[in-house]
């Protein structure tokens, strides 16, 4: 298929429809509005439905209903709206329903601003809502990857019956670049949704009930343990990570999403200056690529984590590095995107023994 110049938000929306998503429930918020606008325009053409909810709270509960009814369903929002969805996301995880949530992150806290940010990492990867659960979290660094990860997200959601978050940022959402939309992908090898409440007569069999209420602690513990056995499987099978120029690197930059993309320019500049710098780019933020650090720890002198936040993923990097090498952090926040030159400067400070 030909490459097409698209805006990130539109590419994500087109990818979702290509993956068989036919239902979208959402509420307007900058900088992700092109996703619901695209869905409102395109879903009716393919027999689907777009509903503009009265709030993000309602939108995520519509997603719950549609997912429980067996549909491929998407919602998207940006940071403050995602905060409002946390209750519903917890219920979706608790009831083991598949759905995809796109967070085009903007700067917080509070109303914050509308410029790009990565300050929802904790919320995305450590729960966000109440109770013991995880989202699978995918972090695209360019539009082509946003398309591919959006489609993968639907398959992973169905495979594991778990909500999947595509964690993008305002830069990914608003950027225009050429993308190639893969051919439509039916979910061929996925398990049948024999649990979905379709409203068909089950008088001969079991009624279908979507629920996350377990009043007896022993039953609830068994339920949560079963979900965590699923997470163990996800951690074994679904870790995705990219290493670039790490073989001889003295300093390895760890970054995801837009920040990783800029880090590539920083690394090229560093290499031009004769500095041996590499990139470790987590693509899945949950499951976090812990094991990918082991070979790099053996060869690198130090790690530099760069985020558009005051430092969130850096905690996971420190757990993965486990004190074997120093881990420095450089972050910009409030909607400011760090430049390649700023990263080069940080690398130089580390090499001079003055890293933060």
């Amino acid at each position, binding site marked *: 298929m030909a490459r097409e110049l698209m805006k990130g938000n539109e590419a994500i929306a087109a990818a979702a429809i290509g993956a068989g998503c036919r239902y979208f429930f959402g509420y307007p918020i900058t900088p992700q509005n092109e996703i619901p606008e695209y869905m409102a325009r395109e879903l009716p053409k393919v027999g689907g439905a777009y509903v503009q909810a009265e709030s993000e*709270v309602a939108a995520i509960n519509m997603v*719950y*209903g549609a997912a429980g009814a067996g549909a491929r369903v998407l919602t998207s929002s940006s940071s403050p709206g995602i905060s409002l969805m946390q209750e519903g996301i917890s219920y979706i995880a608790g009831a083991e329903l598949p759905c995809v949530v796109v967070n085009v992150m903007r700067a917080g806290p509070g109303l914050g601003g509308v410029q790009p940010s990565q300050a929802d990492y904790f919320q995305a990867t450590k729960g966000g809502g109440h109770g013991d659960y995880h989202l699978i979290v995918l972090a695209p660094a360019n539009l082509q990857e946003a398309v591919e990860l959006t489609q993968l997200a639907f398959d992973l959601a169905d495979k594991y019956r778990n909500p999947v978050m595509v964690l993008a940022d305002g830069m990914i959402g608003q950027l225009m670049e050429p993308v190639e939309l893969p051919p439509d992908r039916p979910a061929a090898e996925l398990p049948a949704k024999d649990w979905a*409440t379709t*409203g068909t007569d089950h008088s001969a069999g079991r009624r279908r009930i979507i629920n996350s209420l377990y009043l007896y602690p022993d039953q609830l513990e068994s339920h949560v343990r079963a979900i965590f056995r699923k997470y163990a499987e996800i951690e074994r099978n679904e870790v995705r990570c990219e290493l670039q120029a790490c073989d001889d690197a003295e300093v390895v930059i760890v970054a995801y999403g837009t920040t990783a993309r800029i880090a590539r320019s920083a690394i090229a500049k560093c290499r031009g200056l004769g500095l041996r710098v590499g990139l470790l780019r987590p693509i899945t933020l949950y499951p976090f690529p812990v094991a990918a650090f082991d070979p790099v720890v053996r060869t690198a002198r130090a790690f530099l984590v760069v985020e558009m936040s005051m430092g969130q993923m850096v905690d996971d990097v420190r757990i993965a590095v486990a004190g074997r090498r120093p881990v420095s952090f450089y972050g910009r926040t409030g909607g400011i995107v760090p430049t390649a030159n700023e990263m080069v400067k940080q690398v130089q400070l580390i090499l001079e023994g003055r890293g933060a």
Partner: protein
Amino acid sequence: MKIVYQKSAGLTDVPLHYCPGCTHGIIHKLVAETLVEAGVLGRTVVVAPVGCAVFAYDYFNCDAQEAAHGRAPAVATGIKRVHPEAIVFTYQGDGDLASIGTAEIVHAAMRGENITVVFVNNAIYGMTGGQMAPTTLVGQSTTTSPQGRLRLGQGAPLHVCELLATIEAAAYIARVSVNTIPRLNGAKRALKRAFQMQIENKGFSLVEVLSTCPTNWGMSPTDALRWVEQTMVPVFPLGVYRDIEGGT
């Protein structure tokens, strides 16, 4: 042996957990009978609330989803959009629908969402132990309005039917009660009409049912039934508040 009465096929064999004298059981029965008589039980999905009726998914003999507190109309919206041929109804109490779920119910009605809502109003939070609800009467004593609900500061009861009846896309809005046999028969007629609206794709329908809570009202079951008649009905007048086809 001739069977003169039996439990509706619309209910499972799970024993109801409701308190003695509570009218949830009667309302369950009326809804179940309505689904069976309309011939739609085999294509129905119920959305259960948070509150006393939280286990509705165990009682109604159809597919079910359990919603978060107040969110049942949103969950029902999701189900109905995916399966427009299914009959989707929510079963919600007054805390669930008229307090935490006010936005969801108003906007489901506003969209003309083709679902049916069974709204059980007993003027109090039952499951959590008798706290003040938005439907609590002025002067009514609850655990969180121990001096009696104050008109100013705590407010007078929210009239859900009257509120929703102003919404253009609402097809049928009615308030009934089940405290006497004639009223119970009226409730059944209203439920039939509400579900018929959905079956005919006419849009949003809601039946508010005035219900008892002897436990948290601190009354015997018979006193509670009398209290509905003498104290609740004057505040929450029964009747059809909206019917796009003009019927009553």
